């Protein structure tokens, strides 16, 4: 008995409580299953752990760079935004990283089981979005139940996760078919709610569907916007500069920039957001590099005729101009919402630049499939509204955990619904006293 406890404690301290180790184990097992050589198994496992740590570190950088916005907006429009006492995204990843990893793996297996035994033959391969989806909803759950029964949490999370990762592509498929014309692959991305809505609202211009966006030429000069590093740096720097100018030199120097000249500080902050996101993407790349082939390999053995649910850029080539139209429409809408929300004192919105691209782009493609270029633009606008209101809702719903994440990443599936999910958990907790 003592030996068991000793082993269990050892595992807990040196494995489970080390945030990145579990992802290394998943990669390790995955590489072994793929029968890779010992050198590759070691290399791949270590790299996935480092990737995880890069993600956690980058999360801290992004949070630090985005944080002062709250104070600045408070000065300009007088909205009280309190993030005191929150764990924060970096802390949350370090504290709950092992649980997230286990639920991610568990929900993958639930996904392939559902695909194997039902008609929903979809296997979700967008591993990095599995991570963020579970990250957000685990946080929402912990808001209500801060000290949960861990085994129950892991089982419940895996089941709910697996259901989402199977159902989401299934529900999106009829709308994706209007874009691709086939069932060769499915859409497996956390912007699914947005693209479905965009497809539906595109019907407003049903009569003009043939006036496709692809007949329009986008000037080459705008192509720099496609690069995340560049567009984030430019847009965030611009926003910070405007914010600093509106808040006034004295306030900024005394309270925010620790003596640094305001505009210089603003440029630094804007560039730091881009730094954080660029590094984050490198970390995610390393973290999932070994896990994706493992997941795909396993799914091919168990559900060989499954349709792979893929990352959102797979729809880009079907309507590249629509991607730009959708992105620009969404970004413009979000920026306008920032102004209107601020002026009315409703909420201090931080434009989530990376989301505006990965939600707005596909929304343009789906909107174009039902309503031509007008559908693409309208789809982008509606998605922009959903993102903006979604951020306001979600930041409130995650106030003691990862509200800082909700300030820069608002993929609709985890930006529109967490508030309602939390309400459901509160209701259930009340009834079942947990």
């Amino acid at each position, binding site marked *: 008995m003592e030996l068991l406890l000793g082993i269990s404690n050892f595992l807990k301290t040196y494995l489970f409580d080390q945030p990145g180790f579990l992802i290394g184990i998943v990669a390790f097992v995955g590489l072994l299953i793929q029968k890779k050589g010992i050198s590759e198994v070691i290399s791949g496992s270590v790299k996935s752990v480092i990737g995880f740590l890069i993600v956690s570190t980058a999360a801290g950088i992004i949070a630090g760079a985005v944080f002062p916005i709250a104070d600045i907006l408070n000065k300009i429009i007088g909205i009280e935004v309190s993030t005191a006492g929150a764990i924060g995204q970096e802390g949350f990843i370090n504290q709950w990283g092992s649980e997230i990893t286990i639920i991610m793996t568990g929900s993958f297996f639930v996904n392939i089981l559902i695909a194997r035994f039902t008609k929903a033959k979809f296997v979700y*391969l*967008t*591993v*990095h*979005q599995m991570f963020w989806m579970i990250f957000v909803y685990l946080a929402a759950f912990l808001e209500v139940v801060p000290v949960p029964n861990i085994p129950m949490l892991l089982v419940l999370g895996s089941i709910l996760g697996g259901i989402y990762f199977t159902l989401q592509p299934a529900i999106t498929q009829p709308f994706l078919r209007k874009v691709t014309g086939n069932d*060769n*692959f499915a859409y497996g991305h956390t912007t699914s709610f947005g693209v479905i809505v965009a497809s539906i609202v595109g019907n407003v211009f049903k009569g003009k569907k043939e006036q496709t966006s692809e007949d329009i030429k986008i000037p*080459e000069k705008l*192509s720099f916007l*496609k*690069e*995340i*590093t*560049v567009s984030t740096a430019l847009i965030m720097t611009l926003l910070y500069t405007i914010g600093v100018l509106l808040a006034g030199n004295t306030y900024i120097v005394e309270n925010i920039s620790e003596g640094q000249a305001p505009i210089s500080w603003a440029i630094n902050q804007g560039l730091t957001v881009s730094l954080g996101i*660029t590094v984050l*993407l*490198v970390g*995610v*790349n390393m973290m*999932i*590099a070994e896990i*994706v*082939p493992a997941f*795909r390999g396993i799914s091919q053995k168990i559900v060989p005729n499954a349709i*792979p649910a*893929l*990352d*959102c*850029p*797979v729809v*880009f*080539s079907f309507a*590249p101009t629509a*991607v730009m139209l959708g992105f620009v429409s969404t970004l413009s809408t979000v920026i306008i919402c920032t102004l209107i929300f601020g002026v009315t004192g409703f909420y201090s919105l931080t434009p989530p630049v990376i989301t505006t691209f990965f939600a707005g782009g596909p929304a343009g493609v789906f909107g174009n499939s039902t309503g031509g270029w007008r559908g693409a633009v309208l789809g982008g606008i509606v998605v922009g509204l959903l993102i903006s209101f979604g951020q306001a809702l979600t930041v409130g719903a995650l106030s003691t955990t990862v509200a800082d994440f909700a300030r820069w990443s608002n993929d609709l599936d985890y930006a529109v619904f967490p508030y309602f999910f939390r309400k459901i958990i509160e209701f259930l907790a009340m009834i079942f006293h947990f």
Partner: protein
Amino acid sequence: MKVYAICGAGVGTSTLLKMNIEDVYKKLNLNFTYRIYNTSVSLAKSANADLIYSFQSFEKDVQDMSAHVIIINNLMDLEEIENKTIEYLKSINKI
């Protein structure tokens, strides 16, 4: 030979494409050493690839790099990857 799969963010689609390229290369049993990586458009220039696989959306962005570019339409279509790879490798007498 340094082979790179390139996409926008260097995370989702390029990881899947890299995975499929690896499967194809393994099947082709090539007699030269190669390593396959994946990264984003932004980091592609400093990667110094010999051969790049990418998508239509990024064709213009990867054009002026010294690497040869193969454009893939369906990243999950192993046949397409295989055919285009063989076509290129034949043209440089590596197969």
